[in-house]
């Protein structure tokens, strides 16, 4: 998500007043001012060297303050790697904590506010966190030189040990002295040939915790003293309004402390989670008949399909596609249907608040801290400094914890306020989503319908391309709209198509953005989740129609994109001529989040006709590979997430009510369906780019293309369960 942003456009404005002084033009620069400790920041009492991004404690720990949320994608370790590299710290002395909410210090340069997403963390922080490490290194060196009476040029640091003039010390032993040093005015970063961690490896900092229960780690695990738990009964249809509630039975339950009405629904507050859920079951709720979105997905699909017949808003039209198609030797026409998808991270949504009327503290996996912070301030009528956000590790997100409307923070704040307004003493309250709340709660990957007409000339090359998409806009009406929506077209709907680097000089892409009362949101790789599927299955159909090899056909159209061609070459070479015995092969290659990924899927059809993906061979170019093993992990997980969606995931609605409830009927990938994955990384020296999302888009079309080889069927309506393939 959010990868469209360029700093020349205005920063998105938070929801309340001018608590931010957003500086434009900060994109990617070496902002040494942002990492140098101010006078007095060094913690002389504890003897720690404390800068905004790195603390070194007397007990020899190096604590990196992560401005990004880590929800599994490895960002915390990535930032630790960058600091450790320049500081020459030992890997096992480095820890990560999440930075406080402070957009002045911790903004994502690509967003203009503090937030994580769009696979931007390493791209945004590569210079900043290396520089942060170099600053503390310089202060340690200055301290050692002063203490030992040797020139700074004679001081070296290796694996966390400082030496010079025959003296040795740990970083921790020098932290207090270092804190008294003048911060350097400028620093020189290491040359890539001197890197000891970047491009080589750095163990994930939090894995010892995550193999021992992650005790207290996640937002769901926040249990401040005296805390209560809240669950909300929300409308059965999106936007439906409450007519009446009878809470008598709920309030009679031992442990139910209050039933509160807030705009989002009816909240049961109890002493524990189970009792809160029991209390919610006991509510007697009456919703206004006919209120909210009452259309089902079948009706919506009919409307979307009807819209395909009328011209939409154009996106970067070029050449004369219509004329070229009229002259084409062959024309292939196809329609595709993609369902709504839920993110369904393993940790359901949650957030905890302690509000006393004067100030508020929040705990949770906040992914866009500045928007959550601003939303909470607006709801509670507080100023920015009166609110503290304690960011917790996220138990998955895939986009779900980054909400432009800050709806989770808003609901949590509303509960805190309603609790206090009801005359209760301030207590921490944790809002918990059940899995049903999560699956049925909206903020889905939008449903999408595509119609494509693509032509081949007499030589078997693409001659013209017409493409119409009907899908809700994700960004319209959000604080990010000005970045992403231009002339009515939400770029996230057409990304990967109208900006394709395949040589298609005559191309016309247009879109309709129907208004539907179902909230939508970016879902791991956003529009690429459907656009890559269409582009790469169409490329396969065209190659077949032209009688050409699918790799050769793509390469012939990629003369202008050496990096995309490069990963396709790499994957094809590594995959070899054929897959395991009895398998059929499909290929896809796609650029997203400025990274390039090719995936070659070897697929077997089981005796019952279902698909088993046996092996996926990947080629990846994401610039400088900071942590190669984490790149492997993100490609494995990213394609697993995409495979899960195309096989079995869909959210449907009947008369506006979501038909799915929980994992038994919204069915993610399980272990038996996970393929073997082999990842090959291009050893690039280009600036690092995204890795959390780019593994997801190519897997669907790669598998679909293999299924065509195996069965002759083109799957154009997802998921595969609709065709007996899963």
């Amino acid at each position: 998500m959010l990868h469209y942003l360029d700093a020349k456009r205005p920063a998105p404005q938070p929801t309340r007043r001018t608590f931010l002084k957003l500086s434009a033009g900060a994109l990617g620069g070496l902002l040494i001012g942002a990492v140098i400790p101010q006078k007095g920041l060094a913690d002389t009492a504890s003897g720690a060297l404390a800068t905004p991004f790195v603390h070194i404690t007397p007990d020899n720990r190096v604590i990196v303050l992560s401005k990004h949320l880590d929800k599994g994608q490895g960002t915390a370790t990535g930032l630790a790697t960058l600091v450790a590299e320049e500081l020459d710290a030992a890997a096992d002395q480095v820890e990560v904590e999440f930075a406080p909410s402070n957009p002045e210090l911790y903004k994502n340069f690509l967003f203009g506010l503090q937030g994580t997403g769009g696979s931007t963390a390493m791209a945004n922080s590569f210079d900043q966190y290396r520089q942060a490490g170099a600053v503390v290194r310089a202060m340690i060196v200055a301290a050692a030189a002063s203490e030992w009476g040797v020139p700074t040029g004679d001081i070296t640091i290796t694996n966390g040990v400082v030496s010079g003039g025959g003296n040795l010390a740990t970083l921790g032993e020098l932290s207090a002295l270092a804190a008294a040093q003048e911060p350097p005015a400028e620093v020189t970063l290491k040359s890539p040939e001197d890197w000891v961690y970047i491009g080589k490896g750095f163990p994930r900092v939090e894995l010892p915790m995550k193999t021992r229960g992650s005790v207290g780690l996640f937002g769901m695990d926040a249990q401040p003293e005296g805390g209560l738990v809240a669950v909300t009964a929300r409308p059965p249809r999106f936007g439906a309004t409450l007519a009446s509630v009878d809470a008598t039975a709920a309030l009679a339950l031992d442990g139910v402390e209050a039933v509160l009405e807030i705009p989002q629904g009816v909240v049961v507050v109890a002493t524990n989670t189970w009792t809160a859920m029991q209390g919610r079951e006991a509510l007697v709720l009456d919703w206004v008949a006919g209120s909210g979105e009452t259309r089902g997905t079948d009706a919506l699909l009919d409307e979307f399909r009807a819209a395909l017949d009328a011209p939409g808003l154009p996106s970067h039209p070029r050449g004369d596609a219509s004329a070229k198609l009229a002259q084409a030797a062959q024309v292939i026409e196809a329609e595709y249907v993609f369902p709504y998808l839920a993110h369904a991270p393993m940790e359901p949504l949650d957030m905890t608040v302690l509000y006393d009327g004067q100030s508020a503290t929040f705990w949770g996996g906040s992914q866009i801290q500045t928007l959550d912070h601003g939303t909470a301030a607006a709801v509670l009528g507080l100023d920015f400094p009166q609110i503290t956000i304690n960011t917790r590790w996220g138990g998955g997100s895939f986009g779900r914890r980054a909400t432009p409307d800050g709806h989770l923070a808003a609901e949590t704040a509303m509960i805190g306020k309603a609790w206090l307004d009801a005359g209760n003493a301030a207590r921490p309250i944790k809002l918990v989503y059940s899995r049903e709340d999560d699956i049925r709660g909206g903020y889905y990957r939008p449903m999408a319908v595509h119609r494509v007409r693509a032509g081949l000339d007499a030589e078997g090359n693409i001659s013209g391309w017409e493409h119409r998409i009907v899908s809700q806009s994700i960004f319209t009406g959000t604080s990010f709209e000005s970045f992403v929506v231009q002339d009515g077209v939400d770029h996230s709907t057409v990304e990967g198509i109208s900006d394709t680097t395949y040589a298609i000089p005559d191309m016309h892409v247009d879109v309709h953005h129907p208004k539907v009362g179902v909230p939508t949101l970016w879902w791991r790789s956003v529009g690429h989740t459907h656009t890559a599927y269409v582009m790469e299955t169409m490329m396969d159909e065209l190659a077949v129609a032209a009688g050409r090899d699918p790799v050769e056909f793509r390469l012939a159209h990629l003369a202008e994109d050496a990096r995309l061609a490069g990963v396709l070459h790499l994957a094809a070479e590594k995959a070899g001529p054929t897959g395991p015995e009895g398998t059929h092969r499909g290929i896809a290659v796609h650029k997203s989040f400025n990274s390039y990924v090719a995936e070659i899927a070897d697929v077997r059809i089981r005796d019952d006709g279902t698909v088993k993906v046996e092996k996926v061979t990947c080629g990846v170019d994401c610039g400088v590979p900071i942590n190669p093993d984490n790149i492997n992990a993100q490609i494995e997980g990213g394609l697993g997430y995409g495979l899960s969606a195309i096989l079995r995931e869909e959210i449907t609605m009947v008369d506006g009510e979501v038909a799915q409830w929980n994992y038994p009927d919204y069915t993610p990938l399980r272990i038996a369906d996970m393929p073997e994955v082999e990842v090959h990384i291009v050893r690039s020296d280009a600036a690092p780019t995204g890795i959390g999302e780019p593994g997801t888009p190519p897997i669907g079309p790669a598998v679909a293309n293999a299924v065509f080889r195996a069965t002759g069927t083109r799957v154009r309506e997802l998921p595969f369960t609709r065709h007996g393939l899963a």
Partner: protein
Amino acid sequence: MQLTINGEPREIDANPDMPLLWVLRDELKMTGTKFGCGVASCGACTVHINGEATRSCQALIGDLEGATVTTIEAIDTPAARAIQTAWVELQVPQCGYCQSGQIMSASALLTETPKPTDDDIDAAMEGNLCRCATYARIRRAIHRAAEIMEA
């Protein structure tokens, strides 16, 4: 109810219909066991009850009189130690939220079947969801843990 949790005798004063999951998390403040679905469909809440991998969201505390419960906070069998070592060695977890349950299920598998086949792993781990799709590493790490135990 009286039962043994992580080796300690505990007297639990709770509604007998409350699932063990919420007794652990909310009453005993033991947050290692995770809530994922509440319907025994994801495995995040897996604990060992009398040595068997069990979904604690469906185990009512009123039915557990005299039971022996082990959670991720305290599991220390040879199989669990090998699993935890292999999990770090192969860098299995991503978000980590499901991993308490994965480790409890994998530990029970290895205790029962020291050299599991891929089919054994599929059967034992099918009930444990991972949205980060760390499954390929889970499979390799279980095989690796079997090697560690054998050594």
